[in-house]
């Protein structure tokens, strides 16, 4: 398969948020779900922590009161490509806007000891790679990047996370999922290649379970 503009290597500044259970309401608050677009969410990422005032969809970053203490507002972390956090990142609401906000901000990789199931799935539809590591490994990463800006480099094909000091971590992710990020594959096109099987299944189901189709 040919690469379609996507990369095998992601390298960039890592920003750390030291909290468990960061829910998708924190990643992007409800207010911004009023958008009917799929892009343009970068200014609303972690809105409740990034700003000191209450935002509205369409209000520009420049008009907001910035929380200067929040990591993503500080250089060089404002250009972060990797996010390091703790347990159960992305729990709660199914809003895909959470992944759109991370992607639009420039975050391409999220490292955590576990993820909310729906968020984890949504990531792969949008070219964001969630990396699950053991709690102890996450702890050691937090210690390594403490107090000094660091670059992480992620190799998608060999599934390795590399630090500038040479340390390497292997991570697990299903091949089909990571290929979706590498090749930017479209799920609907792929599924429609099985159109005949779906049709045949449906024909049988209409016979077997007619009550499901009572209103058709």
């Amino acid at each position: 398969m040919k690469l379609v503009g996507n990369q095998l290597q992601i390298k960039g500044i890592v920003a750390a948020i030291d909290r468990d259970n960061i829910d998708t309401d924190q990643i992007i608050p409800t207010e911004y779900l009023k958008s009917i677009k799929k892009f343009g969410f970068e200014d609303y990422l972690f809105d409740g922590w990034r700003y000191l005032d209450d935002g509205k969809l369409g209000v520009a970053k420049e008009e907001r009161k910035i929380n200067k203490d929040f990591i993503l507002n500080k250089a060089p972390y404002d250009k972060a490509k990797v996010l390091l956090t703790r347990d159960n990142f992305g729990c709660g609401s199914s809003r895909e806007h959470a992944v759109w906000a991370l992607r639009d901000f420039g975050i391409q990789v999220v490292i955590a000891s576990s993820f909310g199931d729906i968020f984890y799935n949504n990531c792969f539809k949008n070219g964001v790679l969630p990396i699950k590591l053991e709690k102890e490994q996450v702890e050691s990463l937090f210690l390594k990047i403490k107090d000094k800006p660091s670059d992480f480099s992620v190799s998608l094909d060999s599934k390795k996370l590399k630090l500038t000091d040479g340390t390497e971590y292997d991570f697990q992710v299903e091949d089909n999922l990571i290929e979706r990020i590498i090749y930017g594959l479209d799920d609907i096109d792929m599924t429609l290649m099985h159109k005949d099987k779906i049709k045949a299944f449906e024909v049988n189901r209409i016979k077997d379970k007619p009550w499901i189709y009572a209103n058709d």
Partner: protein
Amino acid sequence: MPETLYDKLWNEHHITTLDSGESLLYIDRQYLHEVTSPQAFEGLTKKDLLPWRLNANIATPDHNVPTERGNSFEMDNIVDEISKIQVVELDKNCNRFGIKQFDITSDNQGIVHVIGPELGYTLPGMTIVCGDSHTSTHGAFACLAMGIGTSEVEHVLATQTLKVSKLKNMHVKFEGKPKENVTSKDIVLYLIGQIGTAGGNGHAIEFSGSYIESISMEARMTICNMAIEAGAKVGLIACDDTTINYAKKHSDLSSDLLTVAEKHWNSLVSDEDAFFDKEILIDVSKIKSQVTWGTSPEMVVDFDGEIPDPSLVPEDKRKNIELAKQYMGIEKNQKLSDLKFDKVFIGSCTNSRIEDLREAAEIVDGKHISKNITEAIVVPGSGAVKKQAENEGLDKIFEEAGFIWRDPGCSMCLGMNPDQLKPYERCASTSNRNFEGRQGNLGRTHLMSPLMAALTAINGTVSNPS
């Protein structure tokens, strides 16, 4: 080999295994609302595709709708222009593609997870999806129901399938008889307190036991609704007479179809000796009314219990507790009964059905809300719930007690419409999430049952329900 209910539903809907190792599952029903569908419809249009099976889809606007609509309200009357665009967009998309919608003027409009079962669109044994994590609610009908993202909404519209990997099986058995005034909301909050919000990650949770067998479909929906708050996107309960009687009452299937269906529905139970990856047994007779104190549903205690002292917990948990207490404005070692509440919200897909409203009305009947409560609202889950409550005179009971009686919608569960908390306001809420800012920027949410929320409205603070 003995199978769990989840295994059976999985196998029944399994079309094929893909080269990737994932499976294509056939989806019987998709619910759509205005927030997570516009981008999916846009994608469909861009690809020049039509919905695979139109009538699998049922739509209603619920998240953005104002709840003070009164009679003859139309989309155009929505004051928030951005909210209006979303509601209008859903209407346009439903008209363009020919999807059945209960629009803002319909008597049957309501929260999607309330109207689905109520109108007979949720039937036992279905696979059900919606761009909303509380789709787990429909698992109460022995359905494989789960929340999905917008890309998947588009995928289901276009292909009537979902590309998924199989989850593991978890079994939570609730045995015993609960104490008086302890409801299904208390039971599920207690479970989340025990296993944590990541406890069910990667699993489908089946709830069973003598307690589950004894409760109504509405109480079962409350439990499955909150499975996602325990980390499980799928919650399930086996089909029994309670399920079948509900389905018969709410659907308009012919008696011929019902006869065939019923035979199948009776098989929707886990086999004896089916294997579960995790098993949990909970004695419900020991559970007291539960109230959350923090910013995650797992931060929950007995109504008269101690809020954790960060200095007494392991170091890795300390920071979360400190941050939560700080956000919630809780001083060291305060008790819930020391906290003064400002607002009360009775509603949401968790607790806005008729039994919830009856439970709350019984508490407030003949009493009045406390002086420190600036606003107490009751938001029925659907037009049908509202009408039923009004027929029973519940609206009058609430109004005489000082509550405001509203029109159906998601309302203050997430404050996407004008129903929001102001900064630092403390709210007793029957909803499902006490996340930071969930009900309004800097708002403070305490989750509890409708009974406890009603009692908090009357007393102004958390108090003993007996």
